[in-house]
């Protein structure tokens, strides 16, 4: 139960800390300050319209510019990987099919084993082998 309670995030901050934060982050209250900021913003925009000011590219605009080519490249890579996998699967299927449908190949080895059977005249196996060796 304790663990479960620990996961509940309360919205209550420390009032003392919040007070200090408000003090540190207090916005200027003077109306003249805001008039001044407004004038600076509008001057900057006017300057950019005249081409005097250029915006520096930042990380998100750079990422934004690369997003489309990046997606296209990723798409192409995905298609290529899909084609390779598909070909591998097709080859594997073909091999399996051939293995299943074609009759097994019986290898006849050179120098295949000759079975020497014992003669029916009652002589021993040893004698029969001896005769076979002499005859070759």
């Amino acid at each position, binding site marked *: 139960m304790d663990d479960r309670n620990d996961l509940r995030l309360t919205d209550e901050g420390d009032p003392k800390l919040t007070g200090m934060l408000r003090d540190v982050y207090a916005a200027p209250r003077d109306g003249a300050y805001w008039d001044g*900021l407004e004038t600076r913003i509008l001057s900057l925009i006017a300057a950019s319209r005249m081409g005097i000011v250029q915006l520096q590219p930042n990380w998100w605009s750079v990422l934004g510019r690369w997003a489309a080519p990046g997606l296209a490249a990723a798409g192409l890579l995905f298609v290529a990987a899909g084609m390779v996998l598909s070909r591998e699967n097709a080859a594997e299927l073909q091999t399996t099919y051939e293995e299943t449908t074609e009759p097994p190949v019986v290898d006849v080895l050179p120098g295949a084993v000759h079975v020497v059977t014992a003669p029916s005249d009652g002589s021993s196996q040893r004698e029969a082998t001896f005769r076979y060796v002499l005859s070759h």
Partner: protein
Amino acid sequence: MHPLRPTVPSDFRSDPQQLTASGRIPDEERELVGLALEGDSRGFAGLVRLHQRRAYAVARAIVLSHEDAEDAVQDGFLRAYQALDRFDPGQPFGAWLNRIVANAALDLARRKKVRTVEELSDSIASPFRDPAEDAELRARLKAALAELPERSRAVIVLHDVEGFTHAEIGRMLGIPGGTARSDLHHARQRLKQLLENMKE
């Protein structure tokens, strides 16, 4: 008179309550957006007047100084102006602008992070700091905030100081509202821990 100076009434100021109410676009804003989209400079000037305070608060929550917040606000407004043709007039302009300003501030904070942390650490270690207790506390808090990652700092300030909801913070910072909430919890804990460590 500035060529872009708006002709909107002088009492046409941003109202934080009105601006944080998501889903409802005030008539004045709708009108100004319409003018701006038609290329009438008075429209955008009115939007600057209407939203600059909130935009400043967003930027200030992310960067470490007032000057950097000003830079981020100016950068954000300029980017918004240049991207105006991509703005959907059916959406609240403030939310769209705040996201642009937050991105500008995050970018600025990342570029300045190392230098600022070093400066603040030095100022804390310095025996010649303001002897007043308040000033010392303030300095400690600033140093602790500088140690926090930008996102954690932004979430704390936007929520605890500016009163934005988790969902609004999430939209601004490009994260889910639940993540903003969880970040807030962890950031508060981390901030307290940093302050405790500095006290010792």
